[in-house]
């Protein structure tokens, strides 16, 4: 139940990829027929990914994943427009792929504004507008948060950006496959996606770049990917991503309905059965597969380990579970008090999960929280 981290590639995805490891091994840049088979697969994959997003094939750049897409979007614009302006607006709850790229650009002399979020994780578009200056070149706000699943008002942020002649990027790595993502509806100029979050392979993703938006490539080399991403294309990965996208598109409506029900049932049962448990994030503007809760008096890594011993894989933004020993920047941004920030769990569902599994997790969670509280010196005595 950690689908926000990654997903098991669909067997159809794996089967689609396999021939491109041996039989069709060509380089899409070669003019002979072996190369042209790869070129054709690349072209049709590009079209499939574009179709999902309501984009044109020529607007899709394949990358190595969400992180590279985010880097390419931010640095690609920042480098190209450095003489026009050096101000970028983002939010405090972005994925590290955005936050650390912004930090890097900050060190390079760019000015970064981090807009806050409210206690449910929502960015206020008015804060974004207030932050815009003559110097602003780009606004990047994530579509849905990877920890708490809060969905941001990207349409409104895009409208504000364009009113001021500023480009907009959104990191849609978590939202694609879990809600409709259409670049025209969102009004964005750039959008990042990743294959392994939607039952596709790891190591492949894409950046949508609206026609007419210029971008400086980050590595020098051949003229692959419309000159924006040099390097021989990862054809097996790209073919796998296209298959995953095709399946996601086909399953989207059913998945949303199914996961909404699992999510709501799980949240309701946890909050009903476990005293002093709280939902993190927004109650309704929330990814269909995201359950993020916290429990007073217990610590997240202990919760995670005990669930793991019961065969349930989840994640936590507890400080103790992170390599940096810092609690999640997202939970801190919500204003959760330090004493409570550690006892959180993220449960991210997938379409292979069942209602029986939801019940199994809740039953075990009730016992585990009870056991840990009995051991906790800060829990009130029962």
């Amino acid at each position, binding site marked *: 139940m950690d689908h926000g981290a990654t997903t098991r590639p669909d067997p159809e995805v794996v089967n689609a990829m396999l021939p491109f490891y041996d039989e069709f091994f060509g380089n899409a840049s070669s003019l002979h027929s072996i190369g042209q088979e790869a070129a054709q697969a690349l072209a049709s994959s590009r079209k499939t990914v574009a179709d999902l997003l309501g984009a044109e094939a020529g607007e899709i750049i394949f990358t190595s994943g969400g992180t590279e897409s985010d880097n390419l979007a931010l640095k690609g614009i920042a480098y190209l427009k450095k003489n026009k302006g050096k101000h970028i607006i983002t939010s405090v709850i972005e994925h590290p792929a955005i936050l650390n790229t912004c930090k890097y650009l900050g060190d390079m002399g760019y000015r970064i504004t981090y807009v806050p979020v409210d206690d449910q994780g929502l960015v206020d578009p008015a804060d974004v507008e207030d932050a815009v200056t003559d110097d602003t070149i780009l606004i990047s706000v994530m579509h849905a948060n990877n920890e708490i699943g809060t969905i941001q008002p990207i349409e409104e942020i895009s409208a504000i950006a364009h009113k001021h002649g500023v480009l907009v990027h959104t990191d849609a790595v978590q939202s694609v496959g879990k809600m409709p993502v259409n670049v025209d509806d969102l009004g964005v100029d750039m959008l990042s996606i990743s294959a392994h979050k939607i039952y596709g392979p790891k190591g492949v993703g894409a950046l949508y770049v609206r026609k007419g938006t210029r971008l400086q490539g980050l590595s020098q080399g051949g003229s692959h990917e419309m000159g924006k991403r040099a390097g021989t294309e990862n054809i097996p990965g790209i073919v796998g991503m296209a298959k995953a996208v095709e399946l996601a598109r086909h399953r989207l409506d059913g998945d949303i309905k199914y996961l909404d029900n699992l999510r709501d049932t799980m949240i309701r049962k946890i909050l009903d059965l476990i005293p002093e448990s709280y939902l993190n994030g927004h109650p309704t503007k929330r990814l269909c597969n995201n359950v993020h809760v916290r429990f007073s008096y217990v*610590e997240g890594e*202990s919760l995670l380990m005990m669930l793991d011993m019961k065969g349930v894989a989840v994640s936590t933004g507890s400080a*103790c579970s992170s390599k940096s*020993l810092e609690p999640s920047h997202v939970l801190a941004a919500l204003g959760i008090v330090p004493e409570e920030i*550690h006892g959180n769990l993220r449960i991210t569902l997938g379409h292979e999960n069942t209602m029986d599994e939801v019940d199994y997790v809740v039953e075990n969670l009730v016992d585990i929280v009870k056991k840990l509280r009995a051991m906790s*010196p*800060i*829990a009130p005595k029962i």
Partner: protein
Amino acid sequence: MYSEKVLDHFSNPRNVGEIEDADGVGEVGNPACGDMMTIYIKVDDGKLTNIKFKTFGCGAAIATSSMITEMAMGMTIEEALEITRDSVADALDGLPPVKLHCSNLAADGLHAAIEDYLKKKETGN
């Protein structure tokens, strides 16, 4: 990430609880930091006859707490004061490097409980 011994002490912690009439109580850590431990000792004739703990924290925090109660049970106060953070970690077949400092509070907790006992003895309370 964790050794078998850590997982064993984490999932079946020994000596969890409180001692109502403890001779010494040690409290270390801070819930805001994610780790806090309270340790209770009974002392008879200079020896630790009973030790209990309560811990809020990660797997390492709970396992080290459990481990030290087993290690120190029956020891003299002098022997128990010799137990270090490293010796607790070693008894658990090691801890991940990142856990060696923050979550390895047990030795500090035990020492604090012994100091509390010695202070009470000195003042006659």
